[in-house]
């Protein structure tokens, strides 16, 4: 706060591209139908490797790979045994909450395993046909819940199978900041005007209204956004579920849904056009979706903790202040 620091503006070598740790929140891990009961695989997300598995009864689990006993990687040679993940080395078994449930040869049970989980696992839920994991750097329990999304959870009324996945070479905060950076919508995306934006914040939820009802949506922590785009009375929905792969590499995943209009209706056509427009170029539209223009900026920019802002810029600093809550150590925040 205070005067502009000219030295900081002139010098960029000390700036970093993604000077943040992995944030806290619920993150998409995979589609539920991609992991069968009894199956196990290694996944690289949230800055490290994890063993993702599904128990015989269907419960998903995600654990640190290295056995608390003697450090074997359970994702190489381990297996799902009933409700447990079994280490290949000495057949110690763990449940999805990280409790050691069996040591097949010990006459005595180490007291600690009766009192607490000894293997780091992430709390998981399945929503929207997807597996979600709660990441907290200090292993704290979830502090909010995933929302009900009618477009994904109502059995009837909505349609749309389109989805996509993109990797950006930056962190979630930098990607999400574009939501409040309204001026870039005109100059980078080519929108006819700088749309007005209203952002409000309530705990882990940010509500955005861009262009007075054109794009209205909510962010639920760093890992889930639900944005509804409305044109001429037709609404289509972008469900965006973003997961950090490393602290500076991010996988953006999206599903696109719309009202289940009958085949051949103008409303169905309009819905599909809105979705085209969210992603890239759409026929008859001047502006471009994120795929065609945002990545070149995200993949090459640096984070300016003290940016030179002008009138007409969106509520960027307020957004950064909101995002701070997802970093456990407030020292990481450089606003």
């Amino acid at each position, binding site marked *: 706060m205070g005067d502009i620091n000219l030295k900081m503006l002139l010098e960029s070598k000390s700036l970093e591209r993604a000077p943040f740790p992995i944030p806290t929140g619920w993150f998409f891990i995979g589609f539920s139908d991609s992991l069968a009961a009894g199956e196990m695989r290694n996944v690289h997300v949230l800055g490290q490797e994890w063993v993702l598995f599904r128990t015989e009864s269907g419960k998903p689990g995600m654990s640190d790979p290295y056995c608390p006993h003697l450090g074997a990687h359970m994702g190489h040679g381990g297996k799902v045994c009933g409700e447990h993940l079994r280490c290949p080395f000495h057949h110690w078994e763990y449940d999805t909450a990280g409790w050691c449930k069996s040591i097949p040869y010990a006459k*005595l049970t180490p007291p600690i395993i009766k009192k607490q989980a000894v293997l780091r696992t992430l709390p998981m839920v399945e929503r929207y046909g997807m597996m979600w994991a709660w990441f907290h750097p200090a292993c704290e329990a979830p502090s909010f819940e995933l929302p009900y999304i009618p477009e994904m959870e109502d059995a009837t009324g909505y349609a749309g199978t389109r989805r996509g996945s993109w990797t950006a070479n930056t962190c979630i905060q930098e990607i999400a900041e574009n939501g409040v950076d309204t001026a870039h919508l005109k100059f980078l995306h080519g929108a006819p005007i700088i749309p007005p934006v209203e952002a409000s914040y309530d705990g882990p939820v940010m509500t955005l209204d861009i262009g007075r009802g054109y794009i209205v949506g909510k962010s639920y922590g760093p890992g889930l956004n639900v944005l509804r785009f409305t044109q001429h009375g037709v609404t289509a929905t972008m469900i965006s579920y973003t997961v950090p792969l490393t602290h500076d590499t991010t996988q953006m995943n999206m599903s696109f849904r719309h009202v289940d209009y009958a085949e051949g209706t103008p409303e169905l056509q309009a819905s599909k056009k809105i979705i085209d427009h969210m992603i890239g170029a759409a026929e008859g539209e001047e502006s471009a979706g994120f795929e065609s223009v945002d990545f070149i900026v995200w993949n090459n920019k640096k984070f300016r903790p003290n940016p030179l802002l002008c009138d007409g810029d969106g509520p960027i600093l307020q957004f950064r202040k909101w995002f701070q809550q997802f970093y456990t150590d407030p020292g990481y925040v450089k606003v």
Partner: protein
Amino acid sequence: MSELRVIGRDGSERRLEAFEGGAVMDTLRDAATGILGTCGGACSCGTCHVYVAPEWLDRLPAKGEDETMMLEAIGELVPLRAGSRLACQLPMTAALSGLVLEIAPEL
């Protein structure tokens, strides 16, 4: 120099020079008394069970939760006595020089 007076599983008595700074377990393990100390003092294996002589008991630190739990479990395998302790939970200090203990049966 501190010492331990150790009654072995065969009833023989030995005097051991004790290393201060470690646990009683360290001295017993390194002197091949039959004490294994497998877990290194984490209170997770129960292989350093000893019977401390009654006259020494009030000079020992109190049992923690893990030691209590472990001794309960040990009691299902071998006899417990009032002096049952895990030697890894007894810091070897000059004040314990002369401590008399008996090596408990193997698990």
